[in-house]
């Protein structure tokens, strides 16, 4: 079928004609054959009937006279007709009377029984039945059976003839049609050839030749018209294309120019960027150098001022020196701020990630500003919610910086009232390890339109504020950035004249329940169930104290004034459950702490409770007055949780009831904690002023100091004798601090205990802390050295030694 579809038109046409011819001839032949067969049958029947009639006539008499023999004779006369198989004579009643059978007829061939007059065609035979009458009466009947061999042979002949005719006709038709078909196909082939040429050569100028007005002629005409159309369109298209090419060329030229300009601009920009980066680099280098250059002399100024202030001075001299001190401190703050800011700008701050005790960190930070708060008569509070983990992971130094900045600002802008620091788990975010810090004050507040800008650099609420309160205005910016680096945010709520709430969040994950707590905390059973009365006029403070005490399962009751305290004491006594401990604030309106204690001492029957005094700032003579009144402990606020617990443990655990133990202060706590609190310190420092300064600071705290001028000397000294602590300046001639530390650590590898080394550095930039720590140092102090920071390092060292000794005691029994 497919191959037929692909055949040429000529072949198709020939095929169609042949088909029609064959079909027509076949039908004709078939019709003739059918007609021939029918007419032959008719003539057969006629012939048989004639025979039957003559036989009937001949046998009628024999039938009537019952002459079988004669009848058979007569029947056998039909032998001449070769196609007659049998002839049967029946009597009147249809019974076979006489029969003729052709010679060689098979025995199986049955003589037909009488039927009605008529003919009967079988596939193999024709039977004719006829009645025989005599004198108008039926005398009998006759049947003649003829085979069809004559018909068949005739038909065979006829068919052979038909096939012959058909074959000749097809041959003739094929010859004629293939010639005639050419008449139709020739023009089409010519057209196809032209079309092929057009499509391969793309020559639309070619035309097909038309020779006729038939359909093919019309097709050729249409084809030519189409070619003309294509030719015209081609020309138009070519024109458009040419124009387009010109336009594209033009546009390309423009683009090329543009790209060139852009490349030039880019190159210029790159140059500018490189220059800017270089400038920035230079700025950072400059700042680092400046930092060092400024800090070193400033260290001298501050340290020496401190030392001078401790000598006997005239009032005038003291006033001058105090001014120098506060000026230099202010200068230090400014320098630190600027450095921090430039570090942040340069993205050079890398937050540390270490475990630290959050409460300790906050408490020690607040202690540094406690004096300033007290001087302004402000209550300084710290409240850490119980759900806040003890030990968290983060950068303690930077957290402290942020808190101090906010608290410092709060103190600065508050004239009366309180400054409170609160820490809680950030419930809002629901995220694990996010803490929410709030620093609240009762100060002047921040006006609404400034609340956003105060976090921007070089901005305070307004310039007049700067004039009044001083400061660079960088603190909040730095804090804001630091908080962001800690994964938190900072914002402010404020009401003019009522105060501000500075909030910030920070991601400080809880550390594993590792106890960092050092010292000698009171055993839990000593505190459990002890009745304590808390007296403080400040509600927040009461809550904080109560919170701490309750954590240790003490029974607390808090009152807000001395008068109420007295009432509560007598009530408890009458109830038969007297208080064992009173923790009272010193500064209270109407009746202060001392007055309360005096009242209690006046009526000894009222209470025999142990009394502890808390104060915001120590005043001359306070300690003496405490001793006099039998107050067993006198502690500075904000009180550290660990300190409070230790102090309570100490006063409650004392065997002798009252007055027998010495007054407990922070120093006495430290003293009591470390019986031999004197450390042997090696100071490696090349600068003579700093040498003198640090030696003085250490000796004042009762430590023994040896001095080395450089790393080599320090190594030599360490070989000679044991030191509890090495304070190592980083920048020294001959061998600097880093090298020396590396050498010491190398030595330790071949046995020997860990030597504690703290770096002293004027470099507050370029990840100095990381450098120091990676060099093997245990910590670092930034120059100018702040006594507070030095104290912390020393305390840590003492605890370290103490723990070590404690471990050794079990084995050796003594130091």
């Amino acid at each position, binding site marked *: 079928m497919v191959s037929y579809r692909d055949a040429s038109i000529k072949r198709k046409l020939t095929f169609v004609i042949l088909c029609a011819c064959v079909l027509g001839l076949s039908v004709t032949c078939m019709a003739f054959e059918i007609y021939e067969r029918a007419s032959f049958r008719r003539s057969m029947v006629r012939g048989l009937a004639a025979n039957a009639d003559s036989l009937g006539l*001949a046998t009628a*008499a024999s039938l009537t*006279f019952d002459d079988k023999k*004669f009848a058979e004779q007569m029947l056998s006369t039909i032998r001449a007709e070769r196609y007659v198989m049998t002839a049967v004579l029946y009597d009147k009643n249809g019974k076979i009377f006489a029969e003729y059978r052709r010679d060689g007829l098979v025995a199986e061939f049955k003589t037909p029984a009488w039927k009605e007059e008529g003919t009967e065609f079988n596939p193999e035979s024709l039977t004719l039945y006829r009645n025989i009458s005599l*004198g108008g009466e039926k005398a009998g009947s006759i049947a003649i059976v003829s085979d069809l061999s004559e018909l068949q042979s005739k038909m065979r002949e006829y068919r052979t003839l038909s096939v012959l005719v058909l074959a000749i006709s097809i041959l003739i038709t094929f010859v004629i049609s293939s010639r005639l078909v050419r008449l139709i196909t020739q023009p089409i082939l010519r057209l196809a050839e032209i079309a092929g040429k057009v499509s391969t050569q793309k020559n639309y100028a070619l035309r097909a030749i038309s020779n006729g007005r038939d359909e093919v002629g019309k097709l050729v005409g249409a084809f030519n018209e189409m070619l003309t159309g294509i030719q015209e369109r081609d020309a138009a298209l070519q024109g458009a294309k040419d124009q387009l090419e010109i336009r594209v060329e033009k546009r390309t030229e423009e683009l090329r120019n543009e790209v060139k300009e852009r490349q030039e601009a880019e190159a210029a920009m790159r140059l500018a960027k490189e220059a800017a980066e270089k400038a920035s680099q230079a700025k950072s280098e400059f700042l680092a150098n400046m930092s060092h250059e400024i800090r070193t002399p400033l260290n001298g100024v501050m340290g020496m001022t401190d030392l001078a202030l401790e000598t006997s001075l005239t009032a005038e001299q003291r006033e001058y020196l105090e001014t120098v001190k506060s000026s230099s401190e202010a200068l230090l703050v400014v320098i630190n701020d600027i450095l921090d800011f430039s570090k942040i700008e340069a993205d050079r701050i890398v937050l540390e990630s270490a475990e630290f005790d959050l409460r300790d960190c906050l408490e020690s930070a607040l202690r540094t500003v406690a004096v300033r708060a007290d001087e302004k008569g402000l209550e300084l509070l710290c409240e850490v919610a119980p759900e806040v983990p003890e030990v968290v992971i983060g950068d303690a130094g930077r957290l402290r910086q942020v808190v101090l900045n906010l608290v410092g600002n709060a103190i600065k802008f508050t004239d009366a009232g309180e400054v409170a620091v609160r820490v809680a788990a950030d419930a809002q975010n629901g995220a694990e390890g996010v803490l929410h810090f709030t620093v609240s004050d009762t100060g002047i507040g921040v006006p609404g339109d400034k609340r956003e800008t105060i976090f921007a650099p070089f901005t305070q609420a307004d310039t007049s504020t700067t004039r009044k309160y001083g400061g660079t205005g960088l603190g909040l910016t730095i804090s804001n950035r630091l908080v962001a680096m800690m994964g938190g945010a900072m914002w402010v709520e404020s009401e003019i004249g009522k105060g501000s709430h500075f909030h910030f969040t920070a991601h400080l994950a809880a550390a594993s329940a590792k106890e960092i707590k050092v010292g000698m905390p009171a055993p839990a059973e000593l505190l459990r169930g002890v009745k304590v009365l808390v007296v403080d006029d400040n509600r927040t403070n009461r809550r904080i104290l109560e919170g701490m005490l309750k954590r240790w399962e003490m029974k607390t009751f808090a009152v807000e004034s001395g008068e109420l305290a007295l009432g509560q004491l007598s009530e408890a006594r009458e109830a038969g459950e007297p208080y064992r401990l009173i923790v009272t604030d010193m500064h209270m309106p109407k009746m202060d702490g001392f007055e309360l204690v005096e009242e209690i001492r006046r009526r000894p029957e009222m209470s025999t409770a142990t009394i502890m005094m808390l104060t915001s700032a120590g005043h001359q003579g306070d300690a003496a007055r405490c001793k006099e009144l039998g107050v067993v402990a006198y502690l500075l606020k904000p009180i550290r949780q660990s300190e409070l617990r230790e102090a309570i443990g100490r006063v409650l655990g004392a065997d002798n009831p009252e007055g027998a133990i010495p007054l407990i202060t922070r120093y006495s706590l430290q003293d009591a904690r470390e019986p031999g609190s004197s450390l042997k310190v090696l100071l490696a420092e090349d600068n003579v002023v700093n040498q003198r300064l640090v030696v003085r600071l250490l000796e004042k705290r009762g430590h023994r100091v040896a001095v080395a001028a450089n790393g080599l000397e320090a190594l030599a000294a360490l070989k000679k004798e044991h030191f509890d602590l090495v304070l190592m300046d980083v920048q020294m001639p001959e061998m600097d601090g880093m090298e020396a530390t590396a050498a010491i650590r190398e030595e330790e590898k071949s046995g020997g205990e860990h030597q504690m080394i703290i770096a002293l550095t004027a470099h507050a930039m370029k990840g100095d802390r990381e450098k120091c720590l990676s060099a093997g140092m245990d910590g670092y102090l930034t120059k100018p050295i702040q006594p507070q920071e030095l104290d912390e390092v020393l305390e840590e060292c003492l605890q370290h030694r103490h723990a070590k000794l404690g471990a050794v005691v079990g084995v050796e029994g003594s130091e």
Partner: protein
Amino acid sequence: MRGQNNPTGEYEIKAAFLFHFAQFVEWPAGAFKDGNSALTYCTVGGDPFRGALDDGLRAKVIGERGIRVEHLKQLDAVHDCQIVFIGAAQSKNAASILASVKGDPVLTVGETPHFAEDGGMIGFCLEGNKIRFEINAGAVSAAKLKMSARLLTLAKTVIGTAGGT
């Protein structure tokens, strides 16, 4: 022949044959009184068929003529008959009867032996058990009767020729 006990009845067959003979014989026009006169069968000297002929021919026709059967006592009456059957009982009278109808168009049928040889036209005879007949073609043509060749072909013996006197 009477003594023969034929199951189909000898005289029934002979009666049928008598009827059929008439079918193959043509009488001249003068043999009948007119065109409508019946064909008359006659027996001489009683009825040897004992009614079988009357029964066999009742209501039959030959051509367009009816059939009449007469049993003659007197011999002279035979001239009006077209077919005369002379039974075995009349064998002595046969010659005289034949002589009396000589020249008349009367078909004579008898059953005595040598009836045809003795001047009769058709004589019954027996061939085995079958009743056959002999024909004296000369006597037939002498009586101006025309006999069909088909009948002649069936005769056991044909004496003389159709054309002879």
